[in-house]
Each structure stands twice: as C-alpha cells, then as structure tokens.
C-alpha cells in the first residue's frame, strides 16, 4: 500500500475514551480547524456541541417537499376533477375536498419520505465508493473499541505540524496521516454489468415497438378473465329453474314495454277503415326527409337505384350474370308507382310485394314513413316541370 499512496489528505489522532474524544474535538475546534470529524463505536452525547455541528437543514427540505406535495396533489385533483373534466362520482360535488384528502395525504408522505432519504444521502455526499479516512488504522479501530479524530488537509487552517501538535496535545495515543487511494481503473465487471443491464433494459421497449408496428393473427392476450364466466344465462339458453325450461323470460301477458305501444293502426299499417292512407300520418319536415334519404340509401337503393328507376347495383349485377330466376325490381318512377297511395307504398315497404321481402323488421314505423316521404320527393324531382320551380328561378335549358 505504501508504494501506491496518493496525496496526503489529513491527520488522524487515536483516543482511548469517549470523554477524551469530546475533549479532543473541543480543542481541535478551538485551534481553528473546521474540516474535521470524530469517529466512535457508539453515539456519544455532547459530541455535536463539542464539534459545533449546526442543526441539519434536512427538516426544512422535508417540510418544503411535504407542502409542495400537498399543494401539488390538491391542485392536480381540483384541476382534473373539478375544472378540466368535471366528473360526478357518487353524487359528490366536483370540488369534493374530503375525497381529495387521502391522495393528498399519501403524496405528502411520499414527497417527505423520498426527500428525507435522498436529501440525507445528498447532504452526506453519498453514495461514494469509499472515504479515504477509512484507511487510517485509528478510524478502523473506532468501529470496535477505539475513538478517533480526523483533521482534513483541505481545511484552510491546516498545517501538518500544528495539527499534529494539537492532536498530541489533546492526548492522542498516536497520530497518523491518511492518503488518497491510488487511482484505480473503473472496475471492469461493473462496466460489463452496466452494458448488459442497458441492453436488457432495451428489450421491453423493443417488444412493445414490435407488437405495435406489426400485425398479429393471434387472439388478444386476455389477462383478466373476470368477465368470461358470469353467473347468468345466455340468450336462448335452457334453465331448469322455470317450468317452460327457457332462461329468457317473456314479458308478462298484457304488458307493453316502454315506447312499444302501437295504438295508432293507420300509423302502423298504412290503412284506415279498409282504405290506404293518401298522406303519411305524421308531420313531414326536413329532418324526416333526410332520415328517409338515409334509410332509402341503405335499404332500397341497392336494387331500385339511387334514382328509383330499378337500376341498382344488385339489379345490374344480376343481369350481367343472366340469373334465370331474377325478377327485375320495379321502376319507382313509373306511372303505376307514382299513382299508388302513400299507405300502399308504406305497406310495400313494411310487408314486401311479389319477390321483394318486407322491411318491417329493419325499419321502424316512423322510418318507413320517412322512406315513403323521401320517395315522393324523389319521384317529383325526376318528373319535374318548369312549373315546379320556385318563383323567380328560370329553367336551365340546353
């Protein structure tokens, strides 16, 4: 060791008892030294006063972190729940302060504890590989039976001869110097370990990127299976609980579900007292016509065509394939179609006619009437004369 010694960093004096240690630190301090430390196997009362150690600033840091945590947690909750996205939970007010307290409390504890821990390390200059003073024999002895005082060479008042004299004068049984450790290369295993850890740390993000960028045909990974098995009976399932053996229950006889009352026969069937209704039994406005156009485009236009002339894509395709059983869809712009009563058109939509299936299951009564109303508008648009133009508009001529 002696051959590899670095710079001299200070002097260490060995002492025999705690009282001597306290007295020695007192005289070292009285001699004007400020950068020195005392070493003892157990806490020695009075050593702080003797060394002139000032109270640590750590409690203030912890207090500050706690107050900041409190303010931050309350502000976060007030802002997110009460201002930015007010969300009613259990009928509580958006600024439900009692509900915010537990989170704020936990954040205060977290901020305070982390600050206390990290602040303690930082104020003590930790972590570090080793303290050179630990190389001194007297300091090593202070972990079992001895006591020691170390004066650092970095102290502005440091003068080796004087420091030696002060330590000896305080009753040191021996005074030794301690040195900076020889410069050693950074330990190779640590370097390799760090590289391996870094490489491994890249694996999870790489997997995430691969999964997000690629396509998988496998079913989704299903971690939480709580909802898979539920104590309920599926649709059409059997149940031995009921006499009729079905799990699904029918409504009680004579009851009508909310919104399902069909009291107006004309509105439902398009026929009143044996005659077809001539007009839809509801008010026709722009919204109804828009609804009718939308329903017509979904359900009717595939065969009858967007213009109603029976040249929809299905019809064109069927003709191209020369389907033998194909019956061409009716031309809705024909004299016959235009002459039908509204109620009769409604009945066709609802129950179908010839080869056309009824759309009563797909379209609610109001939607069927909307289709009829739109069809009337479509027919008028395809068979318009110049008299149909609004006043003041001149017909466009080729």
């Amino acid at each position, binding site marked *: 060791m002696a051959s590899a010694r670095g710079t001299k960093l200070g002097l260490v004096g060995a002492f025999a008892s705690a009282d001597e240690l306290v007295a020695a630190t007192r005289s070292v301090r009285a001699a004007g030294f400020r950068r020195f430390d005392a070493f003892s196997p157990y806490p020695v*009362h009075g050593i702080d006063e003797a060394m002139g150690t000032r109270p640590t600033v750590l409690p203030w840091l912890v207090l500050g972190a706690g107050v900041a945590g409190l303010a931050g947690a309350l502000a976060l909750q007030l802002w997110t729940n009460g201002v930015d996205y007010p969300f009613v939970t259990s009928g509580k007010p958006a600024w439900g302060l009692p509900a915010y307290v537990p989170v704020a409390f936990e954040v205060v504890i977290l901020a305070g504890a982390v600050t206390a821990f990290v602040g303690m390390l930082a104020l003590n200059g930790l972590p570090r590989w080793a303290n050179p003073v630990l190389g001194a024999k007297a300091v090593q002895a202070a972990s079992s039976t001895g006591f020691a005082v170390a004066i650092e060479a970095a102290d502005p008042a440091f003068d080796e001869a004087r420091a030696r004299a002060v330590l000896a004068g305080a009753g040191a049984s021996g005074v030794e110097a301690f040195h900076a450790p020889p410069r050693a290369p950074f330990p190779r295993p640590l370097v390799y370990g760090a590289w391996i850890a870094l490489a491994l740390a890249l694996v999870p993000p790489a997997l995430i990127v691969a999964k997000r960028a690629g396509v998988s045909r496998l079913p989704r990974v299903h971690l939480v299976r709580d909802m898979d098995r539920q104590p309920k009976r599926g649709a059409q399932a059997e149940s031995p609980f009921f006499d009729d053996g079905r799990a699904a229950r029918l409504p009680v006889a004579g009851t009508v579900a909310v919104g399902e009352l069909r009291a107006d026969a004309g509105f439902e069937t398009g026929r009143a007292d044996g005659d077809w209704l001539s007009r839809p039994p509801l008010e026709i406005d722009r919204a109804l016509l828009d609804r009718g156009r939308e329903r017509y485009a979904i359900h009717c236009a595939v065969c009858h065509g967007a213009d109603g002339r029976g040249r929809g894509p299905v019809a064109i395709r069927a003709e191209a394939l020369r389907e033998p059983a194909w019956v061409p869809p009716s031309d809705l712009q024909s004299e016959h179609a235009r002459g039908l009563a509204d109620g009769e058109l409604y009945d066709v939509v609802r129950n179908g006619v010839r080869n056309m299936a009824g759309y009563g299951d797909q379209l609610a009564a109001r939607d069927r009437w909307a289709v009829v109303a739109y069809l009337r508008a479509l027919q008028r648009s395809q068979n318009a004369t110049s008299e149909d133009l609004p006043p003041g508009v001149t017909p466009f001529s080729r």
Partner: protein
Amino acid sequence: MRTEAIRFAPERTIAGDLGRPARAAAMAAAAGAVGVLLTAFLAEDGLRRAQFAWLIAALFVLTLGLGALFFVLLQHLVRSGWSVAVRRVAEKVALTIPAAGLLLVPVVLPTLLGHGGLFPWAAADAAHESELIAHKRPWLNGPFFALRIALYIGAWSWLARWFAARSREQDLSGDPQATLAMQRRSAPAMVLYGVTVAFASFDLVMSLTPEWFSTIFGVYVFAGSVLGFLGLCVPLVLLLERRGRLRDVVTVEHYHDLGRLLFAFVFFWGYIAFSQYLLIWYANVPEETVWFQPRQRGGWAPVSLTLVFGHFLLPFAGLLSRRVKRRRGLLAAWGAALVALHYVDLLWLVGPAFRAAGPAFGLPEVAALAGAGGVFAHALLRASEHSPLVPIRDPRLGESLALRQT
C-alpha cells in the same frame, strides 16, 4: 457518569401534606354539584340540561384518567426507559378513575330507572317507536347498561390501582422483579383496556343517538382521551418541576418526548376523526349522515370548525417544530389548550343529543365542570399525598434521568 443522576435527591420528590388544596378542590366539587342541582330545578328544561352538562363533565375527567392509564400501560408494554421520570404522574392521574366512576352514578341511575332524558332508548316506549331500537334491546336496556358501566369502571380502577400499587411497593423494596411483573401484565391489560374503552364509548356516548352507529367511534374517543391526558401531563409536570418536586428529575428532554407524543396524538386524533367523516360523507347513507347533519348546521358548525382547526390543524402546525417541543412554557400552553379542546370535543360529541340547533354552554356547564373537576383534583391530590412523585427505585430511573435526544 451523568451529572443529573448524581444530583437526584429522592426525598425531594415526595409530595407533602396536600390537605389544603384537596379541601379547596372538595369545596369546588360541592359548589359545582349544588350549581348543577339548582339548574335541574330552576332552569327551563333544567333536568335534561343538568344531566347533559354533568355527563359531559364526568366524561371529561374520566377520559383524562383513561388517557393516563393508557400511558402507564404503554410505558410498561414497550419497556420504555425515558418515561420513568414522568410515569408516576400518569399513575396518579389514572388513580382518579374510581372517583370519576362515582360521577357516573347520576348518569346511570335514571337510565336504570327507565328515564329516557339522556339515553332515548331507556324510555319504556322507545322500543315501540323504532324498530332499530327494539332490535338493539338485548344490549341497550337499563340493567345490562348499569352492569356494563360498573364492569368498565371496576376493570379500569383495578388496572390503575394494581400498577400504581406495584410501582409504589417498588419504591420501598427496589425489587426489579416488580418491573418485570408489570411488564408481563401490561399486554393483557392493554387488551382489556382497548375493549372496555371502545365499548364504554359505545354505551356512554354513541347510544345517546341509539339508531346511529360507527365502528371507529371507540378509537376516536380513545385518541381524544390520550391526547387530553398528554395535554394535561405537560403543564402538570411543569408545575411540579417549578415547585421543586421534579427539579433535576425531568429535563427539557422529557418535555421533548412528551411533546412528540402530544404531536403524534394530535395527528392520530385528526386521522381517526377524518377517517370517520370521510366514509360517512362518501357513502352518504341517511342513517349514518344523520349524526353529522346537526353538527354541520346552525350553532354546531362553528364548534366543528373549532375542532378541525383548534384540535387538529393549528396544534399540528404549532407542535411540528423541535424548538417548540423543547420550550417548556410554550409546550405547556399547547397542552393546556388541547385539554380545553378535549372538553369542546366531548361537548361536540354529546351536546347535539341535547339540542341539535346549537351548543348549550353556560353556567350549568361551568358548574358541572367545577364539580367534576373538583372531584378529579381532590382524588388526584389525595392519591399524591406523602408519596414520591417519581418511581424512586425503578431500575430504569437512571436511564430516564440521563435521557438525551440525539
């Protein structure tokens, strides 16, 4: 090794003849009792008001004694060294429990006789009015109630006396086995204490509103009781130190530790109080919120806020600093304030059952407080007479005298 230990003079810790202050306390008790009796006969709704005022005052002194008993049990349970120098004070305060138990006689007797002024369930027709009360009949009935209160008081008195007597014997014998015996008994004693305090709080306070329930209620009353005792302990120890009985025995280090406990129980009380409030507020179930409803309205709202700030937030901030805990006078002032707020806490717990519109605090309450406080002070002084105020031959006394905070 310690200079303090050398200066310790056991004979100086012995309290002398306390007959005069004890007589003064007895007179205060008598005057208070007369005041309460006058209230009962003269004031409007006087009987009920006198009963409630008396119940609050009796609970106040009883809970101070219970807090002291907890302190004694706790120190033995954890083999505490620092607290030996102040433990005798707690032992003496705990010895007031039998007297405080006698104060409950005017509370228990009318209830036993079927008078429902305090406890609505005690009235003969209460069960017919409410199904819930009828359901609780097997527990809430006069004879069983009286029996339970007697059992609680008996158990606490027995614990207080047993521990005080062993400690007092040790003053003479110096036998370290006594310390070990108390330590062994402290754990089962703590279990007995916890159960009895919880159920006593259910019986004496919660059943004032018999349809309401809160499982944390016992912990709440316990937290307030211990805080009340610690608040009382600091000025008491300071008084004894100033009078010379504890001079060179207690040092600023003991105040520091008492201050820490005070601080801890300020927060514990607030934590428990808020826990009770939060769950009831969040669940918002009518049969639970009914208890907080009157306390948030009218005259009780300022009392609730007084508790939130005075019993919790202000002392929390005030006792946070190490410097405050090491300043005897300031710490004693905080302690005294917390004792006063412990009374406000009990007023807040009990009072709305008397009048939901707002607190009733006036001459009847002061008279009841003087009466119960006089009994308490008399019992405390009589228990302390001619006795060392420090366990002079406790094996851990040296450790306590040498206490230093690192």
